[in-house]
């Protein structure tokens, strides 16, 4: 059986401590800049905060993974290199990277550090994954959320590194690391600035009938009726009209969250080494609830018991959840 490590989100030092207390095997976090894909206002760590957080986590036998999973603009690599040097100096256990240049720098400069390939690299074939392993020494790949469990099982047989899969949270199916929808409207890049739907460009409007519309850079991307659950203000989950669809419809994706709690045994059996919980932008309440729930479920499975599955739907986007492509490629 694989270790089935729980990899948990930490947007702030307090969230990191919450994740550690809730039973995380590892936490992942980022600096307060464009080097990570959750470069949100008021979120993330200063170097001083990371140093104290690494000490706290290590004292409780929890690993710290530093996300450097954005792409430096051409010729502007210094910020990413400095972040890698700082992370190595502070003793993080691994770097989560997407860009080959960043991976190469860390592999050459800090060869003792583990490299994990971010989902932002969108490596979903054995050939692509092997390329990163052979050239940069990648030890683990975070798979995109587009593969079925049989496909994951097959990939595991053909690659020399560990596999990490998302099990809960944002259900992003765009070709990750390549999505330019935010850039198209706001001029800021999800992949280079680390901001999908930057808050500075988001506005919510309440209408007299009780409905609410969400706007990005002045463009309405959804309108929720008074009794309707809401989702994130991302273009990929917006509702649009089209010449063939006069009623607004979800053209790309629906506001819905991934929840694979019922598939954990199958994922372990398929050879998945680590389970990732999405949500560095979420609160300590979310971290506490989700990490505790999956800690219990994984411990049950390890002990040979039937997993107790907590109801997490209240924490899901649009208060809806799916097993997505992991269950069937027919999803959507």
């Amino acid at each position: 059986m694989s270790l089935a490590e729980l990899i948990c989100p930490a947007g702030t030092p307090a969230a990191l401590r919450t994740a550690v207390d809730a039973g995380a095997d590892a936490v992942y976090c980022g600096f307060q800049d464009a080097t990570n894909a959750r470069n949100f206002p008021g979120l993330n760590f200063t170097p001083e905060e990371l140093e104290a957080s690494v000490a706290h986590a290590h004292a409780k036998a929890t690993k710290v993974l530093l996300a450097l999973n954005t792409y430096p603009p051409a010729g502007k690599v210094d910020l990413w290199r400095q972040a890698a040097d700082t992370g190595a100096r502070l003793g993080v256990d691994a770097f989560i990277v997407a860009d080959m240049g960043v991976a190469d720098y860390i592999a050459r400069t800090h060869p003792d550090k583990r490299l994990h390939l971010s989902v932002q690299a969108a490596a979903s074939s054995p050939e692509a994954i092997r390329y990163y392993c052979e050239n940069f020494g990648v030890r683990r790949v975070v798979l995109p959320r587009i593969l079925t469990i049989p496909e994951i099982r097959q990939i595991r047989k053909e690659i020399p590194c560990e596999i990490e899969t998302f099990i809960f949270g944002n259900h992003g199916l765009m070709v990750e690391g390549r999505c330019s929808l935010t850039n198209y409207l706001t001029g800021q890049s999800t992949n280079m600035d680390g901001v999908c739907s930057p808050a500075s460009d988001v506005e919510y409007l309440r209408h007299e009938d009780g409905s609410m519309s969400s706007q990005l850079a002045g463009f309405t991307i959804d309108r929720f009726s008074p009794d309707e659950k809401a989702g994130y203000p991302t273009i990929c989950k917006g509702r649009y009209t089209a010449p063939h669809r006069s009623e607004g419809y979800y053209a790309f994706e629906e506001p819905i969250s991934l929840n694979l709690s019922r598939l954990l045994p199958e994922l372990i059996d398929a050879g998945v080494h680590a389970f990732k919980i999405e949500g560095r932008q979420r609160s300590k309440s979310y971290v506490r609830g989700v990490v505790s729930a999956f800690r219990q479920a994984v411990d049950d499975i390890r002990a040979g018991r039937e997993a107790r599955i907590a109801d997490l739907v209240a924490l899901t986007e649009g208060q809806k959840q799916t097993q997505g492509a992991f269950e069937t490629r027919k999803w959507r």
Partner: protein
Amino acid sequence: MTSDTVLSRRPGLPGQGAVAQLACTLVQPLLSRVVRRIAAAHPSLFARLGPHQTTDFLIDPVELPFALHLRPDPLALVFRAVPRHAVPQVGATIRGRFMLLLELVDSEEDGDAAFFSRDLEVTGDTEAVVRLRNALDDVDGSIAEETASMFGAPGRTILARMRRAYANEPKGHATR
């Protein structure tokens, strides 16, 4: 960007008259004391607010007869009760049931989940709200319990009762 104060005064919310003014006058000493205590105990909170230390927020508990005006400027803190007919021009408005707002301050509830369920309504400068949320979320311990403890055992008892009552309330669409 400024929050739409016309919406803040929308009909149906309590607190439009003299009773609201009286309520504001009565709670103001408490609010001033609370905010000074929290600011002194959690100075790191202000760093995460960044440029929004000087943004004006309207915190609007829908069932109370007044709203709360917050400007989290460490050099000139403002936290005051305002009648809904006299709310100032603000950068952002955060609206929901009082206990939900209190539980959000303490990270006992998740802000995104409350937004998804429509229990929480945000208008105006979204970045300011996100910064405030993240700043509060990085506070260890319970601001609500610290506040209740300022009033000794009776304060803690009242808070516990309010939390029990809130836990049994139906959730969803509380801002309409």
